[in-house]
Each structure stands twice: as C-alpha cells, then as structure tokens.
C-alpha cells in the first residue's frame, strides 16, 4: 500500500496505530532518559493524554510514576499579553536544567506542555526551544527519566526548527488526532471495553410537555430472531402518531433556504433512475461515486441509491435527491416483504435515513408544510420492520422532529428532541456502514441548538462529544462494520475486541468534523474562551479547506471553510489584531462565497 493509494480521499486515510498504547509501551520499556514528542491537535487532547498516561503507566510499569508537568502558562495571568522570558525560564527551562533532587531519577516523567502555545508566544517558545537545544546533553543527564513534549502540529514544526539537535535525539513521535480523549479519561477507558461513550448531561428542557409525552413511547426491541410484520410494526407506532396529530402546530419558518451555487456533477442520475424503474425491485448494480456502473451483481442495494441521493444533494440537485429518497422509502416498503432476514437491517437503515433526509431537505428550503407531512408519514409508516430497524426509525424520527422544530423557530423543543435522538442512537448496536455518522450529526445539531439557546457549556460538551465520535479511534468504518448486518440480525452482540478495530473514516465525516469544530468555536466564543475558539476555527478552516479539492464535497466544504475564515477574521478584529484579521478576510475572499450555504450548519 502506498501513500498515493491512501491519499485518494481524506476518508481513506487510516488512523494511526494505537498511539497511546505505543507511547505507554515505550515509556514502560524505557529505563533512562528518552525524549518523546506527542503531537496533540488541541490542548484538551493534551490534557486527556496526560490523564491517560497517569492512569495507565504506573500499572503497566508496576511501579510508582510521578509526572512533572511544565506548563509555561501555569502562572501567566495577563491574557492577551505574550509570555515573557522570565515566565518561560521559571516554568519550563529551570526545572529541566536544574531539576530538584527528587526529580533526578527514573520514575519521574517530565512533561513539557506546549500544547497551549498561542501565535503571539511564538518568540517565547522559539527562545525556550533554542535554550533547550543548547543544553540538551545536560538535560539528558540531569533528568534521569523521560521527557515528553506535548505540542500542537505548529509547535512541533517550531521545535524542529529551533531545536534541531534536541529533535534529532527523539526516540519517537506520536500523533493524537482529533478529540480522542476526554479530560476525565473515561471516554477512552469505556471505549477500550467496547462500550459506547456515555451520554452527555441533558440540558434543562424547561418542562416541555411534548417531550414528556414522547418519552413514554420508545418501541422496545424484540428478542433476537423474532420479527414483527410491517402491519404490527405500524400498530406500534399508532400512539406515537396520535401524539403528533394532537400536539402539532405550524408557524412560519425561521428563515428561508438560501439556494447555493453548486456545480452539477452527476449526469447519469436520471438514466440510473430509469434503469431502476425498468429493473427488479432490488438493485443489481454496483455504482461508483461518479454514477458509473462498475459491476452487475447483487450488492447491498440500499447503499447505491442512498449514495446517489446524497451525491445529488451535495451537488445542489435537491429535486433529484428528493426523488431518489422518495424512491428508497417507497421501495423499502414494497421490498420489505420479499427480502431475506439478513437484509432487513439494510432496508430499515435505508428507509429511516431516506425519510430523515427528505425532512432535512424540506427544512433546508423552509417548506414547513412538506416537512410536517413527511414527519407524520414517517411516524405513520413506522418502518418496514420492527426491532432494531424500528429503533433506528424512532431515533431518526426524533431527529427529524428536532429539525422541524428548529425550522419553526422553537429551538428549545428542537434541542429536547435532538437530546432524545442522541440517547436513542447511543442505545443502538452497530448497524453496518450506513449509520455511523448519524450520532455525530445529532450531537452537532444539539450543540448548535444549545448555543442558540445561550447554553454555551452544553454546546461545548456536545460539540466535543461529536468530535470524539468522529475521531479515528472511534468512528471508523471498520469499527462499525465489525459486526456484520447478518450477525446483528441474528442478535449477535458486538465483540469488544472488534469494537476497537480501526479503518478509514467515512467520507461524510470530514464535513461533519468541520461543522462540529465551528459549533465548538462558536460555543467557546460565547463562553468567552477566545483562545479555544481560535484554535477550533483554525482547525475548521483547515478541514474545510482541505476538502475543497474533492468535487463531491465541494459545496459543503466551501460553506464551511468560508464560515471559518470569516469568523476568524471577526474574532481577530475584536481582539484588535488587524493583520491577522486582514489575512483571514483574504482567505475568505479566496473561497469566494458571499453568503454561507447549507453546509454552514444553518448559520
């Protein structure tokens, strides 16, 4: 396998091997001074990494390990003022060059935390690294134990440049992408045991009566191996439906959909739809991302039209997407009576997702009546099959309701439904490769809604949870595909060991990651944490920008990158940094978008 083959799509890049495990094993094997570089994308990831090391290393070594964290910002109180040389010397250089006697031994791990380095402190860190470079041999002798540098990718490059000799004696470099860790370390530990992450705390819901009513009716899964007929499944949805009819009210949408300017990339959609109309009820083509038929074989048919529909939606062909989603829904109902047991889940997933996408499309263009009709229809139909499929339909129905309420301007109700849909999605076992982005999408929606309600703290939590769910360690195709649909249909539980497996991240993850980062940045900004907001916005811009070269992701990427650059410029304007603001305004102009499209997460 070459880097070329891996670099074809961003989602094809496999995550690094278990970096945390490698770092722990390196530290366990070490018996004297060794220098390690841990590249963490965010300060939060650095915090979590340190927590993980502190919890795992003593047990692995079978001996006491003491961590000495050297944080140049520990006593820096003047926010906005650059670090001074005195602060850097006191907090980092002196403890390395002249460590107290108690720290000059094996068993003491020094951690130089440069993960919080701000752009205005570049000179201070360059100076620090330069002095470390000069004293590298002395530091190696003085410490006796290991030294771990926690650095962002930018700081890593600064270190290479300012301390090339120190860098050359590193034992290894470890890269921790995304928000793979939580500050309390529980997330990583729970994943290692094969359990999904715990639900974030629920926000205050304000006692909305419809929420209380809705929670009375989550359909219960049947024991494995048993299935209900579609008719009985619909019966189970009846109370649900009555609730909808009773409580529904319609008011004007919050804001109209702004049509985007998107290139038309899918040219064979109509032909394929016609071919499907002529053919059997099951798709027999494997269709590539560009719409070309690659092979004639019986494949997982729901994936194909879904992929086409999503492609059309991304390409701005909303009407085409709507038609395909509608076809999926109708076919799922019809074909539901004919397919084998192992394909039930595919049908269910296709049905639920298609319905949800239809609602989202209507919400995007502000057609409240159409969205309402669809949500009612979704509740009325209840999916072609019960059990897990019905649970999935339930979860996405809740998410659809949330979208609908947001469109109405009732953000509080929307948030309540998003929270419930998150809980429902978390209760589901892996459902094949079609569903893994649903949970992060729900989390992003919840974060955006919480922020709109002024609940910045919850918005941060949910955005972080979304990034965690999207991280390579957790949200990989390999992980979700670890238990096959057939196995799930037979009631097989996911195997813990296989939950830990890794694979390429699905393509859809990258725009979602940028959306989550935007939500995180806005929440941090609302919270008054400018530094974190800047870091998140820069990452969002980087992700969005990197997707601009992918034609099938271009529209979303354009909106996301533009939003990130624009907000960076605004933040720097507020901070009085005209130079940076000018730079990011120029970057926003480069993206060439006057207003944000739907990829902006509804602004």
């Amino acid at each position, binding site marked *: 396998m070459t880097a070329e083959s891996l670099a074809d799509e961003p989602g094809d890049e496999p995550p690094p091997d278990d970096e945390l495990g*490698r770092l722990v*094993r390196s530290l366990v094997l070490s018996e004297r001074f060794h220098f390690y570089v841990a590249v963490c994308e965010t300060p939060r990831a650095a915090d979590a990494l340190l927590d993980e090391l502190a919890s795992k290393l003593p047990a692995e070594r079978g001996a006491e390990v003491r961590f000495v964290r050297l944080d140049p910002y520990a006593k820096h109180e003047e926010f906005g003022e650059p670090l001074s040389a005195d602060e850097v010397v006191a907090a980092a250089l002196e403890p390395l060059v002249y460590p107290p006697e108690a720290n000059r031994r094996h068993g003491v791990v020094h951690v130089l935390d440069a993960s919080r380095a701000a752009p205005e402190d570049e000179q201070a860190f360059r100076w620090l690294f330069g002095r470390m470079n000069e004293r590298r041999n002395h530091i190696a002798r003085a410490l006796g134990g290991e030294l771990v540098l926690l650095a962002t*990718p930018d700081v890593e490059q600064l270190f290479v*440049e300012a301390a*090339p000799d120190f860098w050359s004696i*590193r034992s290894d470099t470890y890269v921790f992408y995304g928000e793979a860790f939580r500050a309390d370390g529980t997330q990583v530990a729970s994943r290692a045991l094969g359990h999904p992450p715990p639900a974030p705390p629920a926000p205050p819901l304000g006692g909305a009566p419809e929420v209380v009513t809705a929670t009375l009716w989550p359909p219960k899964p049947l024991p494995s191996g048993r299935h209900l007929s579609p008719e009985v499944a619909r019966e189970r949805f009846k109370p649900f439906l009555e609730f909808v009819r009773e409580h529904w009210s319609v008011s004007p949408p919050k804001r109209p959909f702004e049509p985007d300017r998107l290139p038309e990339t899918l040219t064979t959609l109509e032909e394929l739809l016609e071919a499907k109309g002529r053919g059997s009820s099951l798709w027999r083509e494997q269709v590539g991302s560009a719409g070309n038929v690659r092979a004639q074989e019986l494949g997982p048919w729901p994936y194909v039209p879904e992929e086409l529909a999503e492609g059309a939606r991304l390409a701005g062909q909303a009407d085409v997407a709507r038609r395909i989603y509608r076809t999926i829904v109708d076919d799922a109902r019809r074909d539901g009576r004919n397919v084998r047991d192992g394909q039930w889940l595919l049908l269910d997933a296709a049905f639920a997702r298609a319905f949800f996408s239809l609602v989202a499309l209507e919400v995007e263009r502000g057609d409240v009546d159409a969205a309402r009709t669809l949500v009612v229809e979704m509740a009325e139909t209840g999916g072609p099959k019960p059990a897990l499929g019905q649970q999935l339909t339930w979860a996405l129905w809740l998410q659809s309701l949330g979208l609908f309420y947001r469109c109405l301007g009732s953000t509080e109700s929307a948030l309540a439904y998003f929270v419930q849909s998150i809980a429902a999605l978390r209760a589901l076992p892996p459902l094949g490769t079609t569903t893994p982005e649903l949970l992060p999408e729900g989390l992003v929606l919840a974060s955006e809604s919480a922020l709109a309600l002024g609940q910045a703290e919850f918005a941060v939590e949910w955005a972080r949870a979304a990034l965690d769910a999207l991280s390579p360690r957790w949200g990989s195709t390999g992980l979700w595909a670890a238990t096959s649909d057939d196995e799930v249909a037979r009631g097989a539980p996911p195997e813990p060991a296989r939950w830990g497996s890794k694979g390429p991240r699905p393509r859809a993850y990258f725009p979602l990651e940028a959306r989550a980062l935007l939500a995180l940045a806005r929440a941090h900004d609302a919270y008054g944490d400018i530094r974190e907001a800047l870091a998140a916005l820069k990452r969002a811009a980087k992700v969005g920008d990197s997707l601009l070269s992918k034609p099938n992701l271009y529209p979303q990427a354009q909106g996301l990158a533009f939003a990130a650059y624009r907000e960076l410029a605004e933040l720097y304007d507020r901070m009085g940094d005209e130079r940076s603001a000018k730079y990011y305004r120029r970057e926003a102009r480069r993206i060439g978008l006057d207003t944000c499209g739907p990829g902006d997460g509804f602004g």
Partner: protein
Amino acid sequence: MLNSVERVFANGAPYLRLPVHVIYTVPPPMLVRMPTDSVRFLPMIKLRTWDRDPAEGAVVARGKPFPEGVAVAREMVRRRVPDGALAEFLGPDFEGRLRAIIQWSGGYPRELLRLMQRVMTAERFPLSDRLFQRTLRQAADESSRIVFSNGQRALDMPAKVYLTQKLTVDPGEHVLADRLLTGNLILRYSNDKEWDDVHPALLELPALREAIERQQAALLAARGSTPPPALTAPAPG
C-alpha cells in the same frame, strides 16, 4: 540558532584557532551557508546505486541496493537486536523486512534505530503486513509534516535534488534548505565525491513524485528528449 553558529564560525574563526587539536562539529546546513573545503562531512550510509541516462545525465530510475552499505546497516541492527528477537518482532521473513526498514532509513543511523524502536513498541508480534507497512508510513508522516508546512517550494527543492543529486540553494531559499537539512529530508552521502539525495520516505508523497516528473519532463524537453515513463513509488527492499 543557525545564524549564531554561522556568526561564530565565520566571524569568530580566528578566535577558534586554539593551540591544541580541536574538532568542532557543526550542523549540516552550515555546509550550504558557508561552503568550505575545511569542513569534513559525516555522510549517511550509501544504500542504493542510481541509474542515469548516460546521454542526458539525469536520474531515470532508482537503482539496485548497494550491498556493502546494506551490510553495514544490517550489522548495526545485529549488534543491538539478536536474530532470534528479530524473528519474533518481524516474523519469519525478518531479513526481508529488515532490508525494507534499512532502505527506509535512507542510511541515517538514528532513523534506522528509531524505526527499530517503533517496531518494538507495536502491540502484537510478529507484525502483520498491514501493520508493518503502517509503521513505515507513520515514520514517513513525520517527514511529510515538515514538507507540507513549508509550501510548494519544499517539494521543488527535493525534486531537484532527486534529479541532480546535488543540493543547490538559490538566494532566498536558505531558510528552506536549513529546514530540509536539519529535518534530514535531504541527506548527504559520500564515496569518491559528495552527493545529496532525498529521504526515501519522501518519495512516498505523490506531490513530490509529481514535482519530480514535472521537473524531469521540463529538463528533457529542454534538451529535446522523450520524457521517461512515470515515476513509481519505490518498493521497500
């Protein structure tokens, strides 16, 4: 930092002449900053020969492994890790994999030992093919981060080195050359004469291979020759 070194050795040279034998060591970029015959270079281990177009002089393909260099690198590993342990880490074909690791090191001893350390901290032994490839690729990621943080010129310069086997630095490119040399992305070798090459890990980067092909085509077009076949990534070993 390099400016300080340059000041000391260029401006302060008279003061460095002590009445005893002294060996001063300087970082590799000093060779570019203050070219002088008095600096002896500690070269990398030569691991490959090169196939050149005899008429045009440009490199047309990576050559065969250079057995003497590979043997030296192999001996470095043998003195640190016994063959039995290597078989445990790398599997029955440990010699083949070790050859791949040696080639990936580019003849830079620290890189070779770092790669071996990386292998030994894997979760399971022996390494599967996929994990082995990933281990090598992760090592390359570090290099690619340096390249991509320095823009397009950081691709053009190694491409030129690859084709000419000589690092030439134009005015205004010293900082970039410093970074590539200190990052060991451009390595210097020596047999009867000194020559430069790019780190083998960099050749895995499609963007660099494109830059090489572009420069090679331009070079040959200027001479009225037919461009050679497209460059492919080197197979380990």
